[in-house]
């Protein structure tokens, strides 16, 4: 755990681009004064920026994170209720407005000052500082598996505890009794000696005048009664009867519909459009062009080329007319770029090693390889991936000369609002953003391009417009998990011990530690080279871990087999000084009954991956027959420090595994003539009911600092799958997706194996 240092502040200044250093003490004061008008309604008192109490004694948590399916809003509310001693049945939550008051200080602190332990006295200063930085860069982000471990841990628990303190203080004054004699429970205050009691709401107005403490006393884990429970999610009932509102369910008076098509070659421009046939079609209102756009910043930076849109009185008519446009696009010299040429480029650049930058340089790798008994090498590759959120990107906009209103589901409402304002030439105050449930986000909905397209179209036609991507447009206009290549070399000594590890890969993003290995290997040389392509990058569930988890955990497996060792034991021996990781590995092996003999044609593989502060171990069991792979079972263990909502974490792990498995089995975006070739679930498929495995998830509450849950399930499934396929067939899958690998093998000559596939 680092100390609060000048360096921490400086790096924050650099990252935020604001040049702020400590010494400029920016104190937030009582934020309720500025935020009250935004969130408090009739009969409601805002006691803290994160919570209000109404006259019925209902407590509403105001949460600066969006709901894209991860259920974090319920878990965050649990954290607040716990510290506040609130009655769970009286708890509600709502999403914070897209306003600077709700800039995500906690995310900033967790992200920028990772591992820095703040002394209590500087907490208000740091929060003030973070508020300014967050304001500057528009942070109101849901991503990085951050909600629980930063907002919840640093802020909502403190909010609940400080409000409880304020209510006790207020009651003590009113009743003329010492604070120490007042007891709070289930949203009630009690003075047992005099038999007095009152609901929180009775003192809410008076307590709202106070400034909440930034350093209230928090509970110990052993005192938790709400945290640690699997509370049913508040949003679930609305998601089984069709009443949950997604952005696409919004209807404005006079609203019309837009179908869009953006340049097939990323960054391209529209050369010519013949819209005469489209304009003559029934219901068509206008055909408009939207120019290129881009955003910079810590999160959600992107750039996108020209778009053509057809606006009509129904979406169906708009889509039909869009297909009738005759379009010519400039390909910006990218017309010869293909997936093949991109991987050839990666191969060249890795071989050339120009300006190779080291992530890790430890020991003498060159000498260790020279003296190693066995040296193995391998190249691994993963393709581009699209997100294919179940709900395609869409937004509804009304734009006039001096204001804009937008209805959208997004991962970064404040950032979207700022980007819209800047692009429309408006002040942020002139832009209102209504955020809705997202039908999946996975990183795609942190880029504001789709909201801006809707706003630009609405401004041109002067009416409320609902813009919806077709599925083809969603797949072709994504910001992709990059295609990546990694070149490995491993050295084993005469005892089969892994002594040297080298890795050179292309394309580095976040998190920076993704390519590292947790194992005790004396000589390590991990580095990357730049090899840029024109295919746009986007954060994709677990970001760089999604490729590096596959690469490193597969190659460690190769080393184990080269050493003639059991892959589980091989890993365990190299984790002697990492008890938390070892505990997860041991537990997953035990739960999966590692070592139990398997029939011919079946196999199992293991993986271990630390990401976003959580450790996940996975064992995958497969059947391979007729060259086809069935994933039968996945056993997962997660140590996220402490599980606020155990079932919520399990659901996230199941979700992360299926998402990672869809990519590992089927996911491949290819580039042809500079453009994305895929266009539907037919050529970019996902795991479905018939090919989804049984998933068993086990939780370890180690008490370590809390980690995330939304992403850590994803990286480990591809390597455990590939390792299981090797176990079943002796064939090593080094290039994803699995569906493209030739897995026919000798074992299949056996009738027993052939029968498995029947």
């Amino acid at each position: 755990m680092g100390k609060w240092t000048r360096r921490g502040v400086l790096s924050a200044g650099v990252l935020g681009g604001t040049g702020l250093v400590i010494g400029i003490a920016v104190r937030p004061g009582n934020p309720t004064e500025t935020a009250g008008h935004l969130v408090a309604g009739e009969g409601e008192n805002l006691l803290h920026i994160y919570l209000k109490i109404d006259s019925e004694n209902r407590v509403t948590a105001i949460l600066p994170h969006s709901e894209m399916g991860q259920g974090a809003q319920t878990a965050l509310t649990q954290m607040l209720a716990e510290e506040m001693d609130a009655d769970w049945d009286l708890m509600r939550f709502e999403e914070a407005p897209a306003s600077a008051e709700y800039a995500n200080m906690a995310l900033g602190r967790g992200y920028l000052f990772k591992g820095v332990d703040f002394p209590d006295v500087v907490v208000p200063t740091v929060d003030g500082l973070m508020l300014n930085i967050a304001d500057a860069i528009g942070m109101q982000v849901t991503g990085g598996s951050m909600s629980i471990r930063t907002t919840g841990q640093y802020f909502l628990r403190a909010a609940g505890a400080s409000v409880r303190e304020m209510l006790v203080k207020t009651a003590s004054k009113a009743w003329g009794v010492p604070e120490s004699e007042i007891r709070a429970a289930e949203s009630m205050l009690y003075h047992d000696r005099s038999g007095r009691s009152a609901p929180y709401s009775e003192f809410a107005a008076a307590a709202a005048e106070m400034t909440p403490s930034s350093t209230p006393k928090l509970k110990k884990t052993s005192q938790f009664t709400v945290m640690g429970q699997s509370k049913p999610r508040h949003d679930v009932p609305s998601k089984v009867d069709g009443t949950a509102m997604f952005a696409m369910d919004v209807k404005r008076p006079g609203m019309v519909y837009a179908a869009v098509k953006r340049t097939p070659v990323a960054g391209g421009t529209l050369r010519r459009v013949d819209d005469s046939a489209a304009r003559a079609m029934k219901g068509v209102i206008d055909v408009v062009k939207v120019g290129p756009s881009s955003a910079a910043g810590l999160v959600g930076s992107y750039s996108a080329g020209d778009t053509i849109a057809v606006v009509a009185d129904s979406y169906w008519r708009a889509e039909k007319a869009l297909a009738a446009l005759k379009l010519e696009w400039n390909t910006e010299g990218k017309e010869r770029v293909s997936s093949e040429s991109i991987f050839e480029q990666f191969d060249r650049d890795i071989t050339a090693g120009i300006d190779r930058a080291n992530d890790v340089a430890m020991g003498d790798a060159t000498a260790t390889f020279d003296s190693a008994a066995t040296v193995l090498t391998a190249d691994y590759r993963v393709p581009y991936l699209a997100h294919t959120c179940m709900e395609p990107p869409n937004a509804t906009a009304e734009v006039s000369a001096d204001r804009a209103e937008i209805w959208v589901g997004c991962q970064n409402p404040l950032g979207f609002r700022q980007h819209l304002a800047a692009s429309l030439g408006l002040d942020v105050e002139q832009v209102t953003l209504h955020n809705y449930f997202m039908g999946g986000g996975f990183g795609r909905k942190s880029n504001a391009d789709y909201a801006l397209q809707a706003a630009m179209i609405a401004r041109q036609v002067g009416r409320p417009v609902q813009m919806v991507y077709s599925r083809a447009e969603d797949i072709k206009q994504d910001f992709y998990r990059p295609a990546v290549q990694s070149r490995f070399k491993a050295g084993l000594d005469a005892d089969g011990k892994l002594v040297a590890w080298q890795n050179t890969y292309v394309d580095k993003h976040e998190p920076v530690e993704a390519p590292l290995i947790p194992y005790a290997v004396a000589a390590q040389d991990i580095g990357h080279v730049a090899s840029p392509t024109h295919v746009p990058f986007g954060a994709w569930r677990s970001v760089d871990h999604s490729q590096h988890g596959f690469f490193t955990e597969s190659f460690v497996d190769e080393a184990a087999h080269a050493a003639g060792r059991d892959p589980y034991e091989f890993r365990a021996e190299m984790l002697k000084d990492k008890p938390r990781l070892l505990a997860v590995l041991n537990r997953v092996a035990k739960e999966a009954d590692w070592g139990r003999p398997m029939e011919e044609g079946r196999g199992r593989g293991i993986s271990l991956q630390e990401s976003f502060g959580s450790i996940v171990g996975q064992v995958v069991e497969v059947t391979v027959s007729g060259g086809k792979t069935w994933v039968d079972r996945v056993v997962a263990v997660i140590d996220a420090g402490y599980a606020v909502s155990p079932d919520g974490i399990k659901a996230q792990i199941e979700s992360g595994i299926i998402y990672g498995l869809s990519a590992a089995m089927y996911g491949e975006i290819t580039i042809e003539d500079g453009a994305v070739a895929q266009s539907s679930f037919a050529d970019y498929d996902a795991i479905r009911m018939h090919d989804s495995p049984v998933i068993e998830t086990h939780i370890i509450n180690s008490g370590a600092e809390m980690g995330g849950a939304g992403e850590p399930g994803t990286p480990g499934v591809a390597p455990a799958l590939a390792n299981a396929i090797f176990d079943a067939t002796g064939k090593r899958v080094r290039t994803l997706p699995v569906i493209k690998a030739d897995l026919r093998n000798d074992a299949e000559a056996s009738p027993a194996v052939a029968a498995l596939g029947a």
Partner: protein
Amino acid sequence: MTTFTLNGEIRTVDTDPETPALWVIREQLDLTGTKFGCGMAQCGACTIHVNGRAQRACITPIASLEGASVTTIEGLKGADGSLHALQQAWIDHQVPQCGYCQSGQLMSAAALLADNPNPSEADIDTAMRGNVCRCGMYGRIRSAIKQVAGASFYDAMEGSQNG
């Protein structure tokens, strides 16, 4: 003009006969529980019941519904407003994540059970394979269907937790 019964009410719409029912239901009849996921019968998000059978509204021309009885997710509840057994099972198993696919999942599952109250694993696979859930809640969907079908099942919410 097309006239059909929608969730028990007679409705008449006037639009291009080839317009997919999905857009008529969402845009003209203001029932937004039926979702758009692909428009090509590849994802199941738009699943409705036409005369009791699951059908993809995104490729169902509105004219083909003439005289039909159509049910959407809004009509899955009982006449008294009580939840369909599957809806309750969906809540019990905390099935939805983002929830966007779940109207379609429920409509496919309800059509399956109406037709076959004791489906086998393979029956469930066949009936549900047209419904994508990008949040990956297949295990929970399967458990919830089996709960209603009275079959035993692996419960994803069980598992274990310790210190």
